[in-house]
């Protein structure tokens, strides 16, 4: 009887020490779930979800504060991927978030630009080049199309245009054909 208790107590002690050691030795820095959610989000940093960037939104989802259907650039595919990852029920993109826009890029009309640097401060990915009282321009390759630079411009010289289709970015379309009618 006593040996059994002693044995179990001893085992509990050993395993307790082992677990304690492991939790210190293999401590995970940061929250891996947030990283995984962040990897699914499109990284436009557009803030359309109501959070200041993709990472904060990922954190909010991980904490259960935010729904998974708030990201318009991610679209339905992104929402489904999040639902799959978090094992949540897929949810229709909410009305104000449901417009899944075509890929856009910002263009500065350089004749009108007064060089106020407001758009540079707004750009979340440093894709606008320029200085005070000097003309600004968008580095099209780095622009994520988040539209955050449009509102601050005092002279309305920034326009969002759809990314032009090129031979190198063209995709084969989904085949659509009519099935033949066998019986009337």
């Amino acid at each position, binding site marked *: 009887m006593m040996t059994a208790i002693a044995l179990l107590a001893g085992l509990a002690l050993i395993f307790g020490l082992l677990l304690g050691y492991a939790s210190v030795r293999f401590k995970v820095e940061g929250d891996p779930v947030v990283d995984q959610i*962040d990897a699914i*989000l*499109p*990284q*436009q*940093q557009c803030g359309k979800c109501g959070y200041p*960037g*993709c990472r904060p939104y990922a954190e909010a989802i991980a904490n259960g504060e935010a729904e998974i259907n708030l990201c318009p650039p991610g679209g339905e595919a992104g929402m489904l991927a999040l639902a799959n990852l978090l094992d949540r029920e897929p949810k229709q993109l909410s009305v104000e978030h449901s417009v899944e826009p075509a890929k856009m890029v910002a263009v500065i009309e350089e004749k009108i630009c007064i060089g106020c640097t407001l758009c540079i401060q707004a750009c*979340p*990915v*440093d*894709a606008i080049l320029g200085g005070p009282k000097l003309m600004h321009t968008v580095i099209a390759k*780095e622009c*994520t199309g988040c539209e955050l630079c449009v509102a601050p411009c005092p002279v309305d010289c920034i326009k969002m245009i759809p990314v032009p*289709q*090129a*031979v*190198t*970015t*063209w*995709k*084969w*379309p*989904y*085949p659509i*054909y*009519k*099935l*033949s009618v*066998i019986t009337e």
Partner: protein
Amino acid sequence: MKLWQFHGGLKLNGHKSLSSESQITPANIPPLLVLPLLQHIGEPTEAVVKVGDKVLKGQVIGHCREKDCSFLMSTPIHASSSGTVVAIENCPVPHPSGLTAPCIVIETDGEDKWIERTPIADYSTLSPTQLLYHIAKAGIVGLGGAGFPAHIKLSSKSIETLIINGAECEPYITCDDRLMREYPHDIIAGAQIISHVLGGTQRCVIAVENNKPEAYQALSEAAEGQLEVVLVPTRYPTGGERQLIQILTGKEVGRTELPAARGIVVHNVITARAVYRAVQYGRPLVSRVMTVTGKGVEKPQNLEVRFGTLMRFLIDQCGRGKARIERLIMGGPMMGFALPNEEFPIIKTTNCLIVSPADEIEKTPEPMPCIRCGACAQVCPVNLLPQQLYWYAKAKDFNKAQDYHIFDCIDCGCCAHVCPSHIPLVSYYRYAKAEIRASSQEHKQAEIAKQRHEFRTFRLERNKNERKEKLQKMKETSNASKEAAIKAALERTKAKKEQVASNEQK
């Protein structure tokens, strides 16, 4: 010689006699040449001429950004006849999208005057690297249809087997056949040069399908036992690079590796001739032999065509048929694609043009649901399960499609050809592949955007801290100097007082 077999494949009706019996004729010089700046797989070139410039035949007009393209996935573009550059603009290019791309438009002067060429008298005196450089400058790409820059393949190391591909398995196309019959010596010489560039291969094989006995005969006579000429069975898609390797060596090359990783390099017969002409005559790649065939032209034939020639001009030279052209296919009927009109230029990878009036087009019945017969799996040359891929591509379940190795698919079209329900299977695979590629590209861009955003946040934070520190320091230093000044002033007055006191005492 022992031959192996690949799985599946098809015996197709060749339709080759339409164009295979007439000699290769040079095409006329067209009034306009439209030369796309991207005619190969890899990096596009940039125009190095301006509008209004006079150019000579063989002059470089498009070049990659670097000074030396020979180590990049890019080859220069040359003017294919002499004349004046009249525009550098977006023009329609022969591509399934039907979109436009940057092109250089040259108005020819009809003189066809060559730029000064630098032939190599005896290539065996040059090192492989020097020859490779020479070939890279000549703008040679794989002329079988893929357009892979030739110098990239030629820079592979420790190659044991060189295969010259004369299989030409697609129906209608006969340009390789005619070339092998008429210029066997050029091809053999080209193969020997390629072998030299590769550092002297142990084995050099020229493979010809057994439906081209004349070509085999001509090549065997020209080879004089110096390299092997092999007859391989006629079966579509024997001309596929990996399929031909399997037939000749029994080795299977995985999707993620190049044949060079297995010590094998494959070049098309036309590419071999282009290499020979580049070395022997210093002639860059400005034209190619291609087939214009189908019942829509009066004289189907093989022509030596300058790149940039518009298809309309070429069809006119071959005699436009009376019936309206209903369908124009670039490439073969299995792997080519239809073009909406004739206003497209011939580019380096154009090996065939099939011009069909309405009565030549077999009407394919409308697709019906898949009945799971499995005929597609029996003919797939890469041992895939086409019907599974079809389900997953149709359902947009791309992860599953990748699990079933959709990227091993070579788009050969065997599965769609045998499908009793006439489902356009290849269209589904192309769609799925394009979507997967695009999403991985998007993922990469998202990663870059994330890094830039993180760096920006870090930078703003750093700037803020730096400013704070600076302010703090300024405050401290100003405080210190103030105190010092007060102290000095106090001391000065103290000294003055003492002086005044001592003066009074005196």
